[in-house]
């Protein structure tokens, strides 16, 4: 009888990296094929998102945004994975994963409306395959398995990708989602952005497992741990997972090792209660923008001028989007009653009349 199985399995999971902290290619063989324009576009999106995050935090503090979960630090995990998708792939995000759905096609002002809690934020444009950002940790994972089964049965050449965090990997639905997708050999990619803290509980207290990636083994699917601050590694791992899924080789779990610089959400979380400044410093050194910028600069693909252009564009877009969000008609209780069912039953018809009268006063 061997008692070494766990050790053997755990030791298989090494962190996949292409760019080190200095922006040097350490894994030439794994370099994805990306044109100069694509490389610049990835940088552009990360810079844009960093600026957006800063503006969102300040808009939230001014009481103009509503619910917001900061993303700085996680740009490579979020945007590297989304960049590997086809336009018609489905994204099932958690509530922090707004950059992915915006770059998938959700207009920025709708993201702001969603933050504010307005239904117009989630009246998704036709052809945009995204799910409402999930609040219940893990629910998106079983739903992603379902979407993936649906895409396969409809013979679409598309995948379902879903995002959660290290805390989400403790949920039963995390395992059920992977297990269902595996059992049906469905084209799903599960991304766990391991930013080391659920809200405040550290990943070491979430599980005895050394990695989250290894949890794939129990579900009988592929698992990989990726440097989540390395946008090329995240892109390459996601692209590979996507292609294997479409080739009928099954779903993949991708654990991206990352960090959120800010609080869990803007609703009163104080990270100094559970994180040391040493740990913050350690992770700031790994910053995804810094290392990718170094990489691009060495190739002559990025300049301060380019960076400033993106910053200005982001600021302009945000201003425009806020204006559009501000100009959106206020929602009414009668709107919401109308969205309950395709055809309103008698009780809601009665309540519709009651609220129509109230609103016309």
């Amino acid at each position, binding site marked *: 009888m061997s008692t070494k199985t766990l050790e053997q399995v755990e030791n298989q999971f090494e962190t996949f990296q292409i760019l080190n902290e200095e922006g040097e290619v350490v894994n030439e063989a794994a370099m994805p094929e990306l044109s100069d324009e694509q490389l610049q576009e990835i940088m552009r999106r990360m810079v844009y998102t960093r600026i957006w995050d800063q503006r969102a935090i300040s808009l939230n503090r001014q009481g103009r945004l509503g619910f917001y979960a900061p993303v700085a630090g996680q740009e490579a995990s979020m945007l590297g994975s989304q960049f590997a998708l086809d336009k018609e792939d*489905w994204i099932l995000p958690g509530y922090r994963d707004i950059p992915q759905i915006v770059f998938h096609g959700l207009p920025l002002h709708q993201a702001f409306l969603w933050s504010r809690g307005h*239904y*117009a934020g*989630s*009246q*998704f444009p036709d052809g945009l395959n995204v*799910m*409402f950002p999930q609040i*219940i940790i893990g*629910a998106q*994972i*079983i*739903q*992603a*398995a*379902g*979407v*993936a*089964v*649906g*895409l396969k*049965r*409809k013979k*679409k050449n598309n995948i*379902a990708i879903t995002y959660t965090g290290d805390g989400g990997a403790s949920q*039963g*639905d995390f395992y*059920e*989602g992977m*297990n*269902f997708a595996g*059992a049906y050999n469905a084209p799903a990619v599960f991304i766990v952005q391991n930013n080391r803290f659920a809200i405040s509980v550290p990943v070491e207290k979430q599980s005895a497992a050394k990695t989250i990636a290894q949890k794939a083994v129990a579900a009988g699917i592929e698992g990989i741990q990726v440097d989540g601050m390395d946008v090329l590694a995240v892109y390459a791992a996601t692209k590979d997972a996507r292609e294997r899924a479409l080739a009928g080789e099954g779903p993949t779990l991708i654990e991206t090792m990352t960090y959120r610089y800010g609080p869990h959400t803007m609703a009163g979380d104080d990270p100094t209660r559970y994180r040391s400044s040493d740990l913050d410093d350690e992770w700031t050194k790994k910053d995804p923008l810094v290392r990718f910028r170094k990489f691009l600069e060495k190739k002559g693909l990025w300049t301060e001028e380019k960076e400033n252009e993106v910053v200005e564009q982001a600021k302009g877009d945000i201003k425009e989007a806020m204006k559009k969000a501000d100009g959106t008609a206020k929602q009414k209780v009668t*709107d*919401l009653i*109308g*969205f*309950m*069912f*395709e055809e309103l*039953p*008698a*009780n*809601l018809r009665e309540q519709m009349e009651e609220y129509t009268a109230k609103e016309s006063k």
Partner: protein
Amino acid sequence: MAQMTMIQAITDAMRNELKNNEDVLVFGEDVGQNGGVFRATEGLQKEFGEERVFDTPLAESGIGGLAIGLGLTGFRPVMEVQFFGFVFEVFDSVAGQMNRMRYRTGGKLTSPITVRSPFGGGVKTPEMHADSLEGLMAQTPGLKVVIPSTPYDAKGLLISAIRDNDPVVYLEHMKLYRSFRAEVPEEEYTIPLGKADIKREGKDLTIVTYGAMVHSSLKAAEELEKEGIDVEVIDLMTISPLDIDTIITSVEKTSRAIVVQEAQKQAGIAANVVAEITERAILSLEAPVLRVTSPDTIYPFATIEDDWLPDYKGIVDTAKKVINF
């Protein structure tokens, strides 16, 4: 016309819809090869193939997520929860997710899902099988909740449920599955959701009920007839939303009503019916509206369930109280 049990009528409804619409998928634990633990899906996998009628891993929450995801990709899922006592394992999907899909996306995404599940007392199951949990569902905005009491109703209501573009929880009382046969047309027909059915007309007293208690109430009505009391029995069929018009019209005619449910008394469907009658027809009433229910305990161990469940004698006694008030 064929003679069918309720379970045969349910199978027939699913067969009809599987034929009618290729986006209809039927799935759950043991529903494929095995045809379901009650044989509700008997023969369907053989007839429609494993792509349409299939087994799932044993995980209710996963089944709920599967249904929601399939709904998002253009399918019309009919998912089975093997026993409704297991619904707590999939409560988020049913009561937290599919019911708010249309609302949370301002009408853009929907969950055209039917959740089928057996429940109900009197068949000596282990715990967590027989519980009447329909009240939890009825209190959940965005769900329709259907409970048929006859083979004819079962078929027409299930076809309507599957065709509905919003989620419907369709609960099948286990005691009624094979307890009797009735005529069921072989061709398709629908019964509208949200409509009650008057199972017996009468002028002295209205009994509002649903599920297996429809039959206990009809038996009570026969007993009461011997004493010259003419009872009207309303089978709600859909317990959410309630068919308030049918209830109020009847109460205005009879001036007396009782409400009968197999579920425990507190905060249930019967309480809701009493409230609606009180709000809308109090001046028509000659007596308080009383309830016949089971007591507010956990569903009991099988050997004592017959003592715990309401029966026709209790209905007769309560009806007399209201008549003699």
